[in-house]
């Protein structure tokens, strides 16, 4: 474990813990990570592990029961604290739909929020074939996780797996894609580059977001920028959102052959593809050893949630979080709801008049 890092990777539940092990193994530097599960067997392969609800569930897992998992997490949430010393940003990988993945992840993001730790949640939604109950679990907890996390990236398993795969291949394929994506994200935050994305900058970027879209693409050889951009433009992972994009983050990982023109071309193409936004953020990592001849691009589209920024600003003194609250103005039209907790759904502040959010011109 790298105690010097101020970012922590958390795997919640059995499947996500496997993905986190894969991420840790794929990186050539030490990653500060912890696995959390209600099933004791998840911790058998070593590494930092927190068992939730040992007394309640005897380490046998939640049996897919979200509520039992939440209760187990409530029982044991204090055990997380020993892994949070000095942590400012936590990336949580979880598979919604399962009991622990959904129930415990919610309690963890709530706990992180109280401690002033920014949280980025990579949450998978179950495959359609997994059935109605698991999808219901996921949908039920999704909005609560979004409410308490800094930003949540929802990644439907069907889209991660892609293609017409056999059922037994689909899960491992989807988790492999998820692991690869999070590994790239981790490299961007942990590896200094010409334009670096450190924890402080990432926290600032996430401030005011709630939900985002996440995808990555890679290519080699001549025309690699075109290939990467085309892949990002066509992936359904980036087109899934229904709220306006407020900022774009583009992370470029390449070897020493990365040219300035390629960076500019990638940035311009993403700006054009995803519309005018209030901010565009770029980070690059030059890593000849791992990316020689390759170009890997991570794209994060952060959706608008201005109301939450205001709300968080009110909480600053309690949580010890520093945010640019003085720069944020109340969204237009909140009127009688100015001083109450906003009702936010899919990143939209529903207290703002619908016609304002839909840009409808009224014929007076």
């Amino acid at each position: 474990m790298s105690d010097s890092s101020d970012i922590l990777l958390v795997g919640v539940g059995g499947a996500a813990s496997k993905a986190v092990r894969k991420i840790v193994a794929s990186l050539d530097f030490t990653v500060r990570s912890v696995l959390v599960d209600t099933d004791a067997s998840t911790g058998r392969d070593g590494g930092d592990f927190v068992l939730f609800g040992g007394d309640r569930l005897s380490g046998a897992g939640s049996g897919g029961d979200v509520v039992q998992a939440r209760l187990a997490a409530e029982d044991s949430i204090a055990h997380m604290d020993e892994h949070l010393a000095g942590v400012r940003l936590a990336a949580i990988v979880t598979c919604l739909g399962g009991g622990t993945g959904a129930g415990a992840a919610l309690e963890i993001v709530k706990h992180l929020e109280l401690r002033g730790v920014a949280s980025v949640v990579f949450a998978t939604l179950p495959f359609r074939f997994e059935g109605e109950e698991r999808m219901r679990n996921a949908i039920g907890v999704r909005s609560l996780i979004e409410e308490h996390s800094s930003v949540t990236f929802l990644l439907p398993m069907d889209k991660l797996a892609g293609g017409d795969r056999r059922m037994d291949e689909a899960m491992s394929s989807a988790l492999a894609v998820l692991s690869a994506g999070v590994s790239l994200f981790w490299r961007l935050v942990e590896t200094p580059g010409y334009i670096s994305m450190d924890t402080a900058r990432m926290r600032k970027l996430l401030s005011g977001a709630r939900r985002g879209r996440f995808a990555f693409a890679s290519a080699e050889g001549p025309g690699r920028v075109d290939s990467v951009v085309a892949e990002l433009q066509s992936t359904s992972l980036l087109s899934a959102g229904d709220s306006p994009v407020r900022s774009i983050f583009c992370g470029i990982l390449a070897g020493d052959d990365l040219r300035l023109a390629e960076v500019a071309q990638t940035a311009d193409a993403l700006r054009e593809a995803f519309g005018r936004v209030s901010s565009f953020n770029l980070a690059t990592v030059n890593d000849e050893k791992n990316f020689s001849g390759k170009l890997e691009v991570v794209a994060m589209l952060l959706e608008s949630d201005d109301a939450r920024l205001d709300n968080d600003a009110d909480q600053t003194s309690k949580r010890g979080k520093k945010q640019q609250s003085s720069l944020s103005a109340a969204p237009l039209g909140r009127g009688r709801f100015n001083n109450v907790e906003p009702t936010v759904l899919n990143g939209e502040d529903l207290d703002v008049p619908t016609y304002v959010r839909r840009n409808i011109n009224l014929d007076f």
Partner: protein
Amino acid sequence: MTNIYAALEIGSTSTVLAVGEAETGGRLKISCKAKIPSTGVKKSQIINMNAATQSIKSVVMAVEKQQAEAGDSLTIGNAFLVVSGRHVNADMYQATVQVEGAKVGDDDIDDVVEASRLFHLPKDRELLDISDLCFSLDGLSGIRNPKGMSGRILKLDTLQIHADRNRIDDARTAAEGAHLELRDPLFAAACAADAVLSESDRRSGALVIDLGGGSTGYAVYSDGMLTAANAFGVGGDHVTNDIAYAFQTTQAHAESLKLASASAVLQGDYDAVPRTNLPGITPIVQARTISRRALDTVVNLRMKEILSIVRSELEGYDMLHRLHAGAVLVGGGAYMRGICELVQRELGIPAKIGAPLYVDGLESDKSPAACAAIAGALMFAHRNYERKPAIGGFFKRFFK
């Protein structure tokens, strides 16, 4: 002695207290009801304790005064609490027991029902209602009555409706200040469904939408059981706020416009529709007229959005196509012009305004749909506390 019950609803728009009495023959009569504008409540949650307490005191005094005028000396000491707001949620829970013999007996059924009641919610949640849905036996699901069936593992699916304990405690604290003890908290939309749906509606599948001021709630009956419910923090107050913002007027004038002129659906031809008068606010902002098309557009967009949230949740539960009896609208928003037509368009099912079916005393009430939740709460009290006054139980919807 007649059984008398009281129910209190602390809404964003109004605070209502009603008293119900058991009549001979088993029916319930609402003998007295008072409603005053709420203060200190937004989005169905108390934000100013003193103001909320004052509202409760006023409504208790109003009821006691009405009773005194009718010749009854009555002091309201306790009341059931009708709860709504975004903090209400519903989850499915499955209880499991091992069958003792070769076939399922009454004891096994009692055990699994008891197991479902022993389940504990997280500490910050308080249970409002439980609905027993169906049994399953060794993987065979959808069983209505497992008695006599062979199998080893008996399960019972329940829908548990719960709310934020802190918000309910806030209501208790506010009521204590008015010397009123609050008994069981009950979910407004589920209470309303009990009051306005017939047995036939419940069997056919019906949706009750409670269009409140601070929040919107819904309850779904399918195959005779309460199968889904939820609430979210958008309601009629948002419509008023949208109008106030669009036409730069006060909330009071916006509320009047909403009630008197606005329509939830757009009309075909506005050329023939006269403009609507809007009173002046200050010498600078003088009286003027506004376009009805603009007014209806503001309201239509907001109401469509509210209904789209309901539709989206019902689609998530795969419920929409099971609602053969359609939608029944309750709450103050049920009287908005064009709302039934809009529900029909947005949800694809017929809609009507509801009225309590099984209570007397509301015959002269001009807006019975607005009383549906509180009438349902009194029905709950009547049904559950007359025979078993000492048991603080919940509806046993499946077995009743």
